[in-house]
């Protein structure tokens, strides 16, 4: 089957989910003798919040790295918007509209918040070096136009007050938010969040959850996220993939996953006799 499923579904809270945007088919990723991902297939649909969960070392981050082009799987295909994606460098994947955040914040510490978020607009700015050096014509027009969209995102994530602060000076929670802003600035068709709530206190987690839901709601952005906080995952996501030791052990709505015996075994452990 090479056609992608274009039928959508309707979530419990009444949001319409579209067809498949991205599909992973039989992905296997090995590092030498270690098999990080073993024959995994799943899809991500337009407009949904898709969670990938699993115990430590299950291969979740590796999966995200495969999607963002950082690793090339030895076996399997990545399908994106109805086409098989050839082997690509990470920056080419980014320019196709896949943005991500990192487990350990990967911001540009020496730059201001504004510059960090502006860097996210990269794929929308095409002025040549000569135009930029004169700050005339296309270069200036692009700067102003993209600044407007960046300001909307800064506004949306409530980080106006730190716009011109160097990122290195910010506390952890704000950095996470700036990183989300940078990813959003790309206006991605898929947004990958690698543990967006890691290391946060309850209040910050609530804020972040609200932002994730708002982003999905307001911009209709498709989101795939990895998260360890089960409460958050079950509340936010429409469908959940569960991984353990590189294998997929469950896939479905939060309720289905919660009642899946394999999933319960993976998380609570199972008596070996």
């Amino acid at each position, binding site marked *: 089957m090479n056609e992608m499923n274009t039928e959508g579904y309707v979530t419990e809270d009444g949001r319409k989910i579209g067809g498949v945007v991205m599909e992973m088919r039989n992905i296997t990723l090995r590092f030498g003798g270690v098999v990080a991902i073993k024959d995994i297939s799943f899809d991500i649909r337009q407009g949904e919040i898709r969670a990938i969960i699993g115990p430590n070392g299950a291969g979740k981050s590796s999966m995200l790295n495969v999607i963002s082009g950082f690793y090339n799987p030895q076996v399997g295909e990545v399908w994106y918007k109805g086409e098989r994606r050839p082997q690509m460098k990470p920056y080419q994947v980014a320019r196709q509209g896949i943005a991500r955040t990192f487990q350990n914040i990967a911001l540009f510490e020496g730059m201001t918040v504004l510059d960090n978020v502006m860097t996210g607009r990269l794929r929308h700015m095409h002025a040549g070096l000569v135009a930029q050096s004169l700050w005339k014509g296309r270069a200036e027009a692009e700067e102003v136009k993209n*600044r407007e969209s960046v300001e909307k995102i800064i506004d949306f994530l409530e980080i106006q007050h730190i716009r011109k602060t160097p990122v290195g000076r910010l506390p952890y929670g704000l950095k996470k938010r700036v990183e989300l802003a940078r990813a959003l600035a*790309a206006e991605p068709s898929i947004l990958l969040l690698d543990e967006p709530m890691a290391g946060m206190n309850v209040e910050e987690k609530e804020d972040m959850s609200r932002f994730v839901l708002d982003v999905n709601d307001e911009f209709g952005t498709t989101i795939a996220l990895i998260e360890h906080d089960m409460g958050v995952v079950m509340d936010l996501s429409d469908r959940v993939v569960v991984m353990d030791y590189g294998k997929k052990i469950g896939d479905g709505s939060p309720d289905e996953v919660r009642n899946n015996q394999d999933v319960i075994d993976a998380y609570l452990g199972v008596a070996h006799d």
Partner: protein
Amino acid sequence: MFYREAGDFKTSYAEDTQTFPIRFDRYRYFAVLAVAFLVVPFVINDYWLNAVFLPFLIYSIAAIGLNILVGYCGQVSLGTGGFMAVGAYACYKLMTAFPDVNIFFHVIIAGGVTAAVGTLFGLPSLRIKGFYLAVATLAAQFFLVWLFNRVPWFYNYSASGQINAPERTIFGIPVTGAETAPWATYLLCLVFLTASALIARNLTRGMAGRKWMAIRDMDIAAEIIGVNPLRAKLSAFAVSSFFVGIAGALFFAVYLGAVEVGEVFGINKSFLVLFMVIIGGLGSIFGSFAGAAFLVLLPVLLKNLLVGGLGWPTDLAAHLEFIIVGGLIVTFLVAEPHGLAQLWRVAKEKLRLWPFPH
């Protein structure tokens, strides 16, 4: 008191992204430009020109170039001397091959040639980083000097192995050779410096600069959000070498007039420009000026003070000068590792709140 941004409202993003967002800064900048273009040319003499102004202007261009590479893009280079030599020899070959073309264009084309050579030697930066890259650029330094020494075509088979700048004019006024007027050479270099600074500033406040800084701060993250590391690094090498090449061409054609490559563009030159960038402040255009001024002016100042003021013997003063300059650099870097530009920034922050810091 008057250094305030209060009441200085921005109503468009274009205004907010300008080079000097604070009105007072903008006026000061215009004042400096006015003095540099309208006053200095009338009062300048040979001593001030050769001891202070020409080296300051030309080293500033080189420092701006190197700052783009090291300060903005994070790629350490020890090949500045070699790249200045490329600019100088390219300018020399162009001057002698096409005597009818204006020297102004020769200098710019020499910058272009250096950009190409710089990009070539920047290729290893795609694989290696930090100290290792520094060593690779060091190889460029030695190779280029060797090349210009050993291949007679570069110095037009002259018996001495030197290159000499023939007389060339702009608007009928000689700017190279023996018959130059101080104000003419000063203005030529000033024009190049002003243009270089403006271009560098425009590039670094726009997307090109953001890409470079992204590569500097975290290259993996930069790649994942869509920066092509190959193009970003090579464009930094190209732009940086362009300015360094222009500085080299001016250094040879306008300042010295005659050059023996090993002496003038040796490894010392690379280190001198690197020191300027570090002392001035990495990742700051103003820092390039400050660093160049510091390292050009300080020796002159000390010499005048010790020999002229205190009447010490010249050789003693010359040695003491090394000790003092070296000592100052060390003290300075311990006290403020981010350079003069950072001191300036802190001073401005304080000044904004003065006299009520709370």
